[in-house]
């Protein structure tokens, strides 16, 4: 039966119809493709090389057994991706750094956020907590 159908179809190629539902799915696919290409070309045109601008903000501070966890969000406002971004957090008391913790984020893409945490042995609220990105490399 299958063979027969296949043979028959071959003989009547001009009658092979594309069902309506396929045209609909194809139209959706075509629309997605056109949008993607246009969007990517637009990205290419509007691309300027503003270097990564990484700001780090504290999301929340938890006290766990024996340490304090400072959860942070790093946001890259530039339009170049930064790789191996080193985040450093310092607790400053009376102008003196009393505790330091570091974390490395694999990537902080353009206009995106990445989250992480820093662990301190002392309560960061006992002084001034300063978080910043100290280095990155180009991917």
């Amino acid at each position, binding site marked *: *039966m*299958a*063979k*027969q*159908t*296949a*043979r*028959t*179809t*071959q*003989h*009547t*190629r*001009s*009658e*092979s*119809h*594309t*069902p*309506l*539902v*396929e*045209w609909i*799915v*194809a*139209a*959706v*696919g*075509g629309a*997605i*493709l056109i949008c*993607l*290409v246009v*969007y*990517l*070309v637009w*990205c*290419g045109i509007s*691309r300027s090389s503003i270097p990564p601008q990484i700001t780090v903000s504290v999301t929340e501070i938890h006290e766990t057994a024996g340490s304090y966890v400072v959860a942070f969000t790093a946001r890259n406002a530039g339009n170049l*991706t930064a790789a191996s971004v080193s985040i450093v957090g310092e607790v400053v008391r009376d102008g003196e750094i009393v505790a330091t913790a570091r974390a490395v984020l694999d*990537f902080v*893409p*353009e*206009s*995106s*956020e990445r*989250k992480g945490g820093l662990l301190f042995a002392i309560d960061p609220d006992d002084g001034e907590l300063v978080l910043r990105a100290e280095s990155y490399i180009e*991917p």
Partner: protein
Amino acid sequence: MAQAKRSGRSTAQVRASGARSDTRRFLVGVGRAFAGALLFSLPILMTGEMWHLGLHIDPYRLALLLVLNLALLTRLSRYGGMRHTSSILDDLADSLVAFAIAILASILVLTAFGVITDDMSFREIIGKVALQSVAGSIGAMLARNQLGGAGVKRDREDAEKTYIGEIFLMLIGALFLSLNVAPTEEVMTITYQTTAWHKLALLIATLVVMHALVYTLEFGGTVQPHPAEGFWGIFVRFTVVGYVCVYAISLYLLWSFGYTSDVGFEVALGASIVLAVPGAIGAAVARLIL
């Protein structure tokens, strides 16, 4: 229904039932295509370098890859489509369906794996999904044929027996395997840790393996050359030309993924030899099984 079609009757009833069966076949085809997209793209959906590439791939090169992929799919539809297409427009419809399915499969899998999340920028998500859709759409297109019924395959065999058809299938095989390997950093690592002699040996070994796979190892689809054609004729017409195509695909992919920027000309050529190793195997096997 086949009976009715054969006798050339075109009553409204036959047409209605024909349309119904076309629709049913389309839906079954979509299911198969989805399975094919998963089968072909899961290896790279689970490759970290591919996720990162989605971020920093050059947007122009990604757009070009998508457009070329559509052209390739449209041609492939002649061979791998789930039905006998009668016009280029039908081929285009098939290709766009394969593309839509691949996009859907990429979004679902990448979301399930936590690769795309809501705190990512639009650009990042688009890059990741679009890049992954290339392998997926080839898989979707091929699956309609490979996982499909025997009748489709037999008819298709008539179509591919041209020289250009054979070379085209080799390109598809090469593209598929190279796409899986190209994003990994090991391609460049191997390039750096091998000498020029290694690469020369790789090139020769690749040619030998490519030729042996198709003509001498007697796999299921082993091609029987025309008796009048000598060894060198076949070797040059298929294996050497095939290798050059595979090499070009390798170089193109490495360029698309940005691995050829910031490196010397020799490094780029060497990396293409390395990437052509899996590509050539893919090309040879494609001639056997596709």
